[in-house]
């Protein structure tokens, strides 16, 4: 117990110092790539409830800095609710995958490794719905994407950090045509938490 406490105190003391050390190195090209887990909530204009699916996330961001605390770049993000070992009989009545490519901005409001991020661009959603007694129906649409989140760079070396990332991504993809039941103005909101390797 005491050793854990000492470890926590040491972490609290050391991390801000190392984070500040990293700030001075935050210039030029940077890359962040990570994996995580997430939940997608799919709603529509006339929906009285949302469909919820859980899955994996992955992303890569690359960019440069405008200043010590403002970074800009491009981001590729994906969400997939299919798990390789999932038995077929436990499959959800709806499967959702979405991917987005966005321009993104990272803002480090203080000297620490904490940052806020936002992005916008294109999003593509793939939905497979399995109505009762009917073969699965798959539909794909492309629309607007919007991203928000926050993160924390935990430096390992001067230019290398482990990054904790929390975020939300909105994919506004329009109407989905299902047999007999078109769904209007679909918006998928994906919330994710992940961990990334970062060089900046």
């Amino acid at each position, binding site marked *: 117990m005491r050793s854990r406490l000492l470890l926590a105190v040491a972490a609290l003391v050391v991390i801000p110092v190392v984070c500040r050390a990293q700030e001075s190195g935050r*210039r*030029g*090209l940077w890359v962040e790539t990570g994996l995580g887990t997430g939940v997608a*909530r799919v*709603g*529509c*204009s006339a*929906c*009285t*409830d*949302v469909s919820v699916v859980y899955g994996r996330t992955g992303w890569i961001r*690359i*960019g*440069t*800095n*405008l*200043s*010590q*605390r*403002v970074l*800009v*770049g*491009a981001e590729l993000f994906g969400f997939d609710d299919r798990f390789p070992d999932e038995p077929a009989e436990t499959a959800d009545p709806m499967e959702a995958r979405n991917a987005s490519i*966005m*321009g*993104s*901005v990272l*803002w480090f*409001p203080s000297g620490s490794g904490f940052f*806020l991020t*936002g992005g*916008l*661009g*294109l999003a593509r959603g793939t939905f497979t719905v399995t109505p009762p007694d009917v073969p699965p129906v798959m539909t794909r649409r*492309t*629309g*607007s994407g*919007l991203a*928000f989140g926050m993160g924390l760079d935990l430096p390992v070396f001067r230019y290398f950090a482990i990054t904790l990332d929390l975020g939300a991504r*909105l994919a*506004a*993809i*329009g*109407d989905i045509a299902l047999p007999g039941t078109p769904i*209007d*103005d679909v*918006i998928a*909101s994906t919330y994710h938490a992940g961990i990334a390797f970062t060089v900046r």
Partner: protein
Amino acid sequence: MMAALAMAVPSPATAQVSRDGCDRGRPLLAAAQTLAVNYVVNRFDAFVLQAEWAGVDFESWSRNLRLGWEWDENAFGTNMFAHPIHGNLYFNAARANCLNFWEAVPFAFLGSWTWEYFGEMHRPSLNDFFMTSFGGIALGEMLHQVSSSVRDTELTGGARVSRELAAAVFDPIGGLNRLARGEWTRRRPNPAGYEAADYMVRFAAGARRVREAGASNRYSSTFLIDLNYRDPFERAYRAPYDVFTLRLQVSPGGGGLNLLRSLGRLYGGEFSAQDARHRHLWTVNQRFDYVDNLAYRYGEQGLEAGVLSRWRLGDGDLSLRTEVTVGATLLGAIDGPHAGIGERAYDFGPGVGVNAEVALEHRGRRYLALYNRWRSLRTVSGAEADHHLLFTGTTAMVPLTRGIGLGLYLSDDRRTSRYPDAPRDRRSYLEGRLFLTWTDAARHGGLP
């Protein structure tokens, strides 16, 4: 486009942005004021205007958090014009607390997000979130700069207070912050970067003729205000919106507010040397468009990147200016016969666009200009459609006397809307304007 921006490695020195003379930013106070704006506006709507939608409670908050985003059915003017005005209050709560442009951006989103979830009983509206946030940033930064230029912190007495009052009209949140801190009377050097002499204002008044294909001509009076803040060829990039333009057109009896258009430089640089005979700049701009005329309604929030060139002609001061940009429409709105959902009569969607312009100018003043803008929108809310728009126009100016000129404007706008299960909708719209202009001549050599 952002990827292209990311590939350019800027000089950190040029990327530094102003804090208006403050020692440090106050993000917590900015966040508190952002939320306070929502509280005050909501309570005003609920108690004074008796708006049903403003009667929020824990149940509405819970429902909004559970169901999430939708697209709303509000009127075109409400969605595309009023929301950016609301958003500028959030942005300027941050600017008033010494945060720079980029640092203030998250506060526009914070204010808009919290309003959508907690300020209205309706489900959060994604189109409102886009328009309030991005429009608020564009409008907010321009109003912040205008108000900062109106103030003169080296004055004292009535002249000083009257300027503070005038500035507060443009930036009320900034004005209230300054009042609370006793800065309406405190004498100090003016913050660098805000020069009233850098603005060029042009008023135009005249007659307008519009005609939609197949319809008869309609005539009305029309008034324009152009506000140009600096010339990108006269000033190297320093900070976002260090160069911007704003145009407002009103036609009494011809649709009222016809046009509000702004373009602000977010980032830029130069390919050529500053003393080169022919100069070429690259630029990344934020665009805001609101068009509501007798033939169509169109609005967009967009980003664009491109190249501006100035080609010297002969040995004098005559030059040809060209501009080519490509851009993304983050969210556009356009009306159409099959458009909208419910009572809404227009579609929402993202898109792409290209702008091309060529102008003949003398000492920086334009005498002849031709432009062409193409837009393609794909509906994500409304009737499933692809909308293609082509705006073409020309302006000619003739100087008459000091500051006064005569102008002629002609435009031909065309649109095609393609629906998967309905005939194509094609429309064209012709507009002609003949007008007198007055340009803020004292500082600009008496040219129109």
